[in-house]
């Protein structure tokens, strides 16, 4: 862990590399920052969130040490705020404008409306990938190590189109293009990222990642084929079901009971298969992360990811159980006080005072939960995950970094407005 950090700057522990990444964060100070951020966020109706995010990043960057030197985050809340203002000024009117058009089309041209709506949702997905790439550019440009800035070249639109093409291909192939999609996107991200003038390199192939996808891919194919077969075979019955669900005119009893049973079974099985997919998918995501780190190089520096996938899953399960537990407690409290409110509101003994108290008491636990959930997410999930991944990372031949010089390329002036507006998650903060 952190105390095993070698402070010499001499690299080259053979192929295996050395664990020279330290993590100096502590939960206490982090909690204080999170608490302050949330309180100021409430007081400022959320406007503080740009400065809050900046403080949080400063803390995490300031906690990660590579070969004896800590990272520095040079971004500022103001930059994020201006980026957000630009989005409000430009993007929001566009989104509302779309609502106008869709209302107009809905009445005048329903067919076109469906097509436009479809394009709109694709457009939103495209925009989130675009925003994600832009956010990477800002973050890397504000990351300094040993007086040298990081950077992200490449085009956000190019990245978003790459994503779009592979997304279509993945749908057509029932998911079997996913490993190639992962690798191509990682390649674009990594090869366009740089430290100073030195670009990162990426040696990975979809074929190598394929074996981690097989469990998920097989399960997904079964689900998709089963769904298609059921839909095709029982097309007529399905339409009947759909009609009875949407039009009150159709008599539901006209549907054959056996068909209903078949539907229940097939779709029930599909849902179960889908739930089985989730652990397979997590297994794949972890493998993909390990693969990306190990396939990347910077100058002669190689990276070897040695984090334990089980440990990451363990952190997630713990976090998940805590959240479920808290939600259960809140539901219980709300139900109790809510009943008090309902009873005193309606019965002959109508007592508005008691009803108001009941309503207030049943709302408080919900507000507290919403207030503390993001903190729990960071403290119980992101914090240990980042710590574990960082401290188990091995680097080979770090001494070659001495030759790297600063890039004179212009940095983005304002930050990630689009990513903030679209709530694009780039690692939790």
């Amino acid at each position, binding site marked *: 862990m952190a105390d095993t950090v070698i402070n010499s*700057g001499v690299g080259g522990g053979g192929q295996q590399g050395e664990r020279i990444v330290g993590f*100096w964060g502590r939960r206490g100070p982090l909690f204080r920052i999170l608490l302050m951020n*949330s309180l100021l*966020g*409430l007081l*400022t*109706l*959320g*406007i*503080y*969130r740009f400065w809050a995010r900046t403080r949080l990043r*400063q*803390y995490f960057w*300031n906690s990660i040490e590579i070969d*004896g030197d*800590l*990272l*520095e*985050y*040079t*971004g*500022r809340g*103001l*930059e994020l*705020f*201006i980026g957000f*203002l*630009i989005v*409000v*000024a430009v993007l*929001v*009117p566009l989104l*509302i404008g779309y*609502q*106008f058009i869709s*209302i*107009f089309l*809905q*009445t005048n041209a329903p067919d076109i409306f469906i097509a436009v709506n479809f394009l709109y949702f694709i457009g939103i997905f495209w925009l989130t990938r675009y925003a994600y790439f832009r956010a990477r550019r800002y973050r890397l440009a504000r990351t*300094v190590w*040993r*007086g*040298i*800035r990081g950077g992200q070249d490449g085009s956000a639109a190019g990245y978003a189109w790459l994503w779009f093409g592979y997304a279509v291909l993945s749908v057509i192939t029932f998911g079997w293009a996913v490993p190639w999609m992962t690798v191509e996107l990682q390649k674009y991200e990594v090869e366009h990222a740089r*430290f*100073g003038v030195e670009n990162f390199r990426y040696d990975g192939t979809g074929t190598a990642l394929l074996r981690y996808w097989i469990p998920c891919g097989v399960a997904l194919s079964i689900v998709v084929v089963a769904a298609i077969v059921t839909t095709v075979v029982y097309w007529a019955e399905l339409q009947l079901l759909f009609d009875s669900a949407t039009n009150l005119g159709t008599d539901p009893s006209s549907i054959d009971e056996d068909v209903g049973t078949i539907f229940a079974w097939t779709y029930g099985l599909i849902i179960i298969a889908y739930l089985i997919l989730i652990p397979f998918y997590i297994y794949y995501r972890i493998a993909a992360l390990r693969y990306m780190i190990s396939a990347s190089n910077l100058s002669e520096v190689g990276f070897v990811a040695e984090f334990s996938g089980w440990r990451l899953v363990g952190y997630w399960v713990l976090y998940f159980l805590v959240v479920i537990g808290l939600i259960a407690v809140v539901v219980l409290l709300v139900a109790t006080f809510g009943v008090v409110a*309902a009873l005193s509101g*309606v019965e002959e003994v*109508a007592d*508005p005072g008691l009803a108001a108290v009941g309503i207030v008491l049943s709302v408080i636990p919900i507000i507290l939960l*919403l207030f503390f*959930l*993001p903190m729990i997410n960071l403290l119980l999930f992101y914090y240990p995950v980042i710590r574990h991944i960082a401290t188990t990372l091995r680097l080979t031949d770090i001494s070659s970094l*001495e*030759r*790297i*010089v*600063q890039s004179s390329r212009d940095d983005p002036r*304002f930050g990630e407005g689009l990513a*903030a507006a679209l709530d694009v998650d780039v690692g939790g903060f």
Partner: protein
Amino acid sequence: MTDVTARYFDGESARQIDVVVQIGPQNVVVRDEADTVLAVWPPDEVRLAGKPVEGRPLRVGRAKGVAQVVIADPSCLADLERLCPNLNKLRPGIREVWRPIAFWSTVAIASAAFLFLVAIPFAAREAAQAIPPDIEARLGEAAADQITRFFSHTEEAVYCSSPQGDIALRELTQRFVTQVDLPYPLTVRVIKSPLVNAFTLPGGQILIFNGLLDFVEGPEEVAGVLAHEIGHALRRHPMEIFAKNVGAATLIGLLLGDITGGSVIGALVQFTVTASYTRDAERDADADAVDLLNGSGIDGSGLVEFFDRLRAEENSDLQDILAVIGTHPATDERSDFVRTNATADGSAMSVAHWQALKDICGEK
């Protein structure tokens, strides 16, 4: 004057240079082992490059650029704090700041104001007219269900009903409905609540609070209120408010971001701001009410009296009254309009029916 050994990164390359840093009142001077001066920083421009981490070297840089010295022994922090007034300030990321802030703030505020004041109300009006009546009716039923569930679990516990009272209400409603072409069938119900209020949900769901039946002094007043609410339903005002709420909530959610930050508060604010009809909408509904009253031969002075009494109660501290004033502001203008334009002088219902309607929630 303090001398400390350190490692220096010049911000040009990642190479580290072993240096001696001299911390003095005039300047902070960085010298290499051959005594060559590498950097001279005025004290007011010296900044910490990242908060000090316990047990880790101290990092110090200049306000501009990313060059830094890494000082292994952090005990010189006291000296630095004494000599460098801006030590704990952030290193600026961008140079020029105020012009873009001023420009984009103005554009953003103008854009948001345009959306709130012009675009959303206009879009809501268009949407309310465009939505098929059967969808709106289903929406209204869902909203009524919500209200039922809020008060209790069964409709019987929330809505009042008695054989004679129902007939009285139905006959009164029928006298109005036959005159107009409503996009959906009306559902008029009395809700068991002491509040003096009446409102219309999307899809023609009209709710009259029992407290209003206690507050009024004759059936013509109820008829006036009902005609007014039918006016709202006819012009699909409730749907317009619903659409406006959806638009405003989306926009506020986008502006305020995090749920912990502002969305909860934002939702409350937008609810109170947009839950009432506009002055124009009230005027239109009043005009419809007068037409309906005239058409069915019912005396419009009932509505005038209702307005006048509401206004008289405005100064009273009764919470119940405030509720109805909040959603239906009574003004002189509105009374005058009804007084001048109402022409009929007939009664709304028989004395027996009126008694039955007043007692629809049980005799008092």
